[in-house]
């Protein structure tokens, strides 16, 4: 098994999931609580990666961060080298690609929070930010954990976007799924099978954990609120 690829994949997935918590929570908060009419525009943009072929998404990201785009030039002037085919470029693409897997569970959990509770907090003099951390996050914890783990698991298995934006550079951008593809191309089915099984077991274990945690949280709530 290619442990370098496995290590790289886990590093990528962990960073992606962590950054998505930081980036996704404010987006989800806005989506859930904003009264704006054009909210659906943002909602559908966030959901795009769910339906777009990864190659299409990857292509646009590649163009957007490439040396000919303003964003790409800005990054190059800042760091000294272009973003595509680096780990950072891959991370950026992963974040966009897994955005709905984090934002949608977050927003769904926020939608479930009784607005009266939030108003009650405000009338008690607690500002919006503190209300978010003291009340909304604890009440949405199951959704936050789900979003974190789903975006982690989703990043573990990404292929098309990685290939487009990251390429296939050993130790930099070669992830597990690319490694499996390479093994199959080289007719090394035994190697591919081992890695594939490893990814399957890990993904299943991760999902098992999520559902177990979610169940326990819900049961706990049910126990507390008999209504």
């Amino acid at each position, binding site marked *: 098994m290619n442990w370098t690829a496995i290590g790289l994949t886990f590093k990528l997935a962990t960073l992606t999931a962590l950054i998505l918590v930081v980036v996704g929570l404010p987006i989800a908060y806005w989506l859930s609580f904003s009264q704006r009419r054009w909210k659906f525009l943002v909602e559908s943009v966030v959901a795009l990666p769910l339906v777009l072929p990864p190659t299409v998404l990857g292509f646009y990201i590649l163009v957007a961060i490439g040396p000919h785009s303003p964003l790409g030039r800005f990054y190059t002037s800042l760091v000294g080298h272009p973003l595509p085919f680096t780990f950072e470029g891959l991370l950026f693409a992963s974040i966009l690609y897994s955005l709905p897997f984090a934002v949608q569970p977050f927003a769904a959990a926020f939608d479930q929070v*009784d607005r*009266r*509770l939030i*108003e*009650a*907090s*405000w*009338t*008690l*003099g*607690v*500002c919006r930010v*503190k209300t978010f951390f*003291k*009340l909304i996050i*604890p*009440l949405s914890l199951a959704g936050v954990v789900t979003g974190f783990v789903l975006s982690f698991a989703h990043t573990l298995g990404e292929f098309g976007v990685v290939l487009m934006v990251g390429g296939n550079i050993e130790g930099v951008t070669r992830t597990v799924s690319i490694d499996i593809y390479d093994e199959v191309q080289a007719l090394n089915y035994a190697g591919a099978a081992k890695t594939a099984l490893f990814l399957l077991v890990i993904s299943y274990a991760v999902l098992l954990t999520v559902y177990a945690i979610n169940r326990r949280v819900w049961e706990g*709530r049910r126990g*507390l*609120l*008999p*209504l």
Partner: protein
Amino acid sequence: MGSELIVDITKSFPGQLTIDVVFKMALEPPSVLILFGPSGSGKTTILRSVAGLEWPERGVIRYGAETWLDSARGTRLPPQRRCLGYMFQDYALFPNYSVAGNVAFGMEARTGDERHQRVREVLGMLQLEGFQDQKPGQLSGGQQQRVALARAIARRPRLLLLDEPLSALDVPTRTQLRGELRNLLRQLAVPSIVVTHDWEEALALGDTMVVIHDGRVLQSGAPQEVFNHPRDAEVAKIVGIETVMPGRIMDSSEGLVTVEVAGTKLQALAGEESGPDVFVCIRAEDVVLEPVGMRATSARNKLNGLVRDIISMGALVRVEIDCGFLLAAVVTRSALEDLHLAAGSPVMAVVKAGAVHLIPRRDGAHHTKRP
């Protein structure tokens, strides 16, 4: 300029009712204002606007010298900075916090010791000692109501807003907690606005009362005044009680209470009276009119009087009888003709003891504080 709360707001809901109200309340000495009206009349929206949870498109809300809302100048003070206590109809207790956690929720500015002490003090005030570690879901409705109240008063708000504080409770609990709430409001001495559609609550808790219907103020004044002298048939229909008189309990035995109203003795069923001073309330539809000198009836109260006034209300007629105090009765037009009643004619008003409602009166002689 006197210290008062001024509310003058307009808020419309497209396709639904438009709220357009003006009312004032004195802040010094602190009093209790009742927003009274049927459900859907807009009273909760008015209360939410005062709290800053709802933004009227036009209007002014002033608390003393402070401006909370002034649409013309674009002033909008967020709820956090109004320093008020708001109690939601369904309590809105935080399910993930204990009773103590709920009560302490907004008190971060204080030191740990101060906070701890205040939480204990407030829980004691509301007889919630021993419940501090329970979660709201483990409490009964009455206990949840107390926790919600404790949380609303814990920060010593300058204004207390209670939205239908007792409506989610069953009747026996409601009667009991109404008495407790009355004593608590008096003890706290915080200006309060209470939203209710229950005339007993209005009478028991309120110093002044504003009758709201379809988003407008129909009448305001002392509750007793409004009940006895509704401005028009619309108000009369909404308030639901026609005769309200101060009375004093003279005697009580075998579940029956003798109460004196303006020199006349009435019998009523014993209820939740906490002192001798009560309001005696009689619905006009519970008063039966008979010719003077009729046979014995099972009803305990037979009052001889003179017809003072006859007011037409469509198919029904409201007859006001002077029997030491002014008693209102509602009868059909044909009954009026059968009895040959006109202004000045003698009549006997018959009222069952069970139809005489007694509500504890707050402006009576020195009230004994409950322990």
